[in-house]
């Protein structure tokens, strides 16, 4: 990639709790190019939202502590910026939309006032002009009757309209990166489609990059240029989206895709990933996925049945695999696939 807008490098982050420090991110690295959409996908507790909040430095510290790593945005390490300069970055260069628009909007201010506040807070223009621009932005997000709706309060709007208002606020200062944390999860299917198509349209028009955080593989499939799969505070696979769906390499990604129901009618049982995600406070050494991994399981049973003299995947219990590179920007963190498919060291 020639240019990068955001480059997260080796981000390690932990939370101080009464029972001791719990690590939430174990060296997360990824980059977003200008105008590119990267999907960050994982199940609850995998660290995808923490990653997003860390980029904007919105995690309260303590309890959150960045142990190491860099978050480079346009050549500047955001972690080293003084809080005052960071405020200038938030909303202006990087902005964020959340899953639940109701709790992220102020219930006692009209929607118009809240969009206008984005302009006045960053001293872009005076109050009158801000109000006009707010209506203009509500129109751009296809809010019906924008000048009327600007005078309404969040509770008078439906979930879809509130999400539109949130998007208007987030995009008002034309940021170069939008972080969207489950932007459509709380919405109905048809409304979800509306919001995603709106984001698609605005992404093209404003030429901004999007970091899309979701648990829904379907959403990234249609929306992201590249997709990263997270598991237990790590990125276990990252690849161009089409590539990832066509040829998943990491056993976790394979399992997730296989366990999606409804790919065709008449399928009886879904191939499911056995076990549950381990507790973050009790992460096993070695590969985080080893205890649920079909490759590891098979290797172990062959060894126990004395088919092979030595446990071929003993390394999984010892070493946390780094991301190995396969063809065309496809990375996956798996010892087994590296030996089988010959991934290169990154």
């Amino acid at each position, binding site marked *: 990639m020639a240019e990068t807008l955001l480059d997260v490098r080796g981000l390690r982050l932990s939370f101080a709790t009464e029972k001791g420090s719990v690590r939430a991110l174990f060296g997360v690295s990824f980059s977003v190019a200008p105008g590119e959409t990267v999907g960050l996908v994982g199940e609850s507790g995998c660290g995808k939202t923490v990653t997003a909040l860390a980029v904007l430095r919105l995690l309260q510290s303590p309890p959150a502590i960045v142990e190491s790593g860099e978050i480079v945005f346009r050549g500047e390490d955001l972690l080293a910026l003084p809080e005052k300069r960071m405020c200038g970055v938030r909303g202006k260069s990087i902005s964020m939309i959340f899953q639940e628009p109701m709790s992220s909007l102020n219930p006692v201010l009209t929607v118009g006032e809240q969009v206008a506040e984005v302009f006045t807070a960053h001293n872009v223009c005076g109050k009158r002009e801000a109000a006009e621009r707010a209506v203009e932005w509500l129109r751009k997000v296809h809010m019906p009757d924008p000048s009327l709706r600007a005078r309404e309060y969040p509770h008078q709007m439906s979930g879809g309209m509130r999400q539109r208002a949130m998007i208007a606020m987030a995009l008002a200062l034309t940021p170069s990166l939008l972080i969207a944390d489950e932007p459509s999860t709380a919405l109905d299917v048809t409304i979800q489609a509306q919001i995603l198509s709106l984001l698609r349209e605005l992404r093209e028009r404003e030429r901004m990059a999007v970091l899309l955080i979701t648990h829904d593989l*379907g959403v990234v*499939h*249609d929306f992201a240029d590249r997709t990263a799969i997270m598991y237990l505070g790590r990125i276990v696979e990252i690849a161009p989206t089409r590539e990832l769906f066509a040829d998943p390499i990491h056993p976790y990604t394979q399992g997730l895709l296989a366990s*999606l*129901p*409804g*790919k065709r009618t008449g399928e009886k049982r879904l191939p499911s*990933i056995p076990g549950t995600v381990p507790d973050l406070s009790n992460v096993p050494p070695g590969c985080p996925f080893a205890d649920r991994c079909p490759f590891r399981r098979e290797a172990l049973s062959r060894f126990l049945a004395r088919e092979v003299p030595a446990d071929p995947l003993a390394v999984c219990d010892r070493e946390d695999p780094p991301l190995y590179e396969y063809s065309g920007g496809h990375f996956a963190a798996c010892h087994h696939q590296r030996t089988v498919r010959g991934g290169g060291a990154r």
Partner: protein
Amino acid sequence: MTGGIYRPEEDGAILSLVNVYKTFPVRKSFFSTENLRVRAVDGVSLTVPPGKTLGLVGESGCGKTTLARLAIRLLDPDAGAIRFDGKEITRMEGEALRVTRRQMQIVFQDPYSSLNPRMKVSDIVGEGWLVHGLARGKELRERAERLLVRVGLPADAGGKYPHEFSGGQRQRIGIARAIALSPKLVVADEPVSALDVSVQAQILNLLRDLQEEYGMAYLFVSHDLRVIRHVSDDVAVMYLGKLMETGPAAELFHEPLHPYTRSLLSAVPMLGDAPSERIVLSGEIPSPISPPPGCRFHTRCFMAEKVCEEVCPLLRSIAPGRYAACHFV
């Protein structure tokens, strides 16, 4: 027999709803004297054959959860008839209802609020046995243990409290409770919506295995079309309190008839084989307090014409087994 109006085939059905209505009062504001009502279920008929799964799909506020609770008399209908296993249960009361309830159970969406936090898991699972005098004490604990193992929980789970389990495990407890009385019908109200993808697949498999083993019928409610496609033999699509379309799952997903079903399917990525047309509906879902006249869907429909604003289309037969409520199908 094309063109016929939908009439549920009640012969041999385990559950049939005939023209069921349910409204709820709403108070618009403290001082308002207007008598407003949410028309949650507005004249719906459907049947569930024994041992089969009917998937009920729709967006929030379409009345699917209300309908599911009406089906097992956790709510009482305003009008219409509910028949269960050949018996009319619409107005059943007291002991008769209590006994009938053994045959119909429910699994809930929220694995947290559906289990009493102050009861041990074996008491939760065995409550039905206790109230129907089927088992108690040591026998109850042993039977609960066998059942918990059957749904994939460790044998010592019975002695613990719900908060010691993860969401997926709690859902297994809820399923064990539902099948404890060997019901003929289980209403599954969004049973996997609160779960992560990998856990979701485990629970869906469990539900399917149990259906094969015990031969019960499911009324499976979900907003998730992928899940509905996976579990259902037949599918019913609801919108604003009315059925829009119903038919066998394979055919409905292969070739949806109703414009609402078509747009629903197109809104879900990776559903089906070919990337179908992308239909993005305009507008919001109208309020069920004052649903639009005529066809409920006409305000957002890409095929709507004048007649749709005036005449509410009936659910009529389009092809064998397939019904849709649209003037233009």
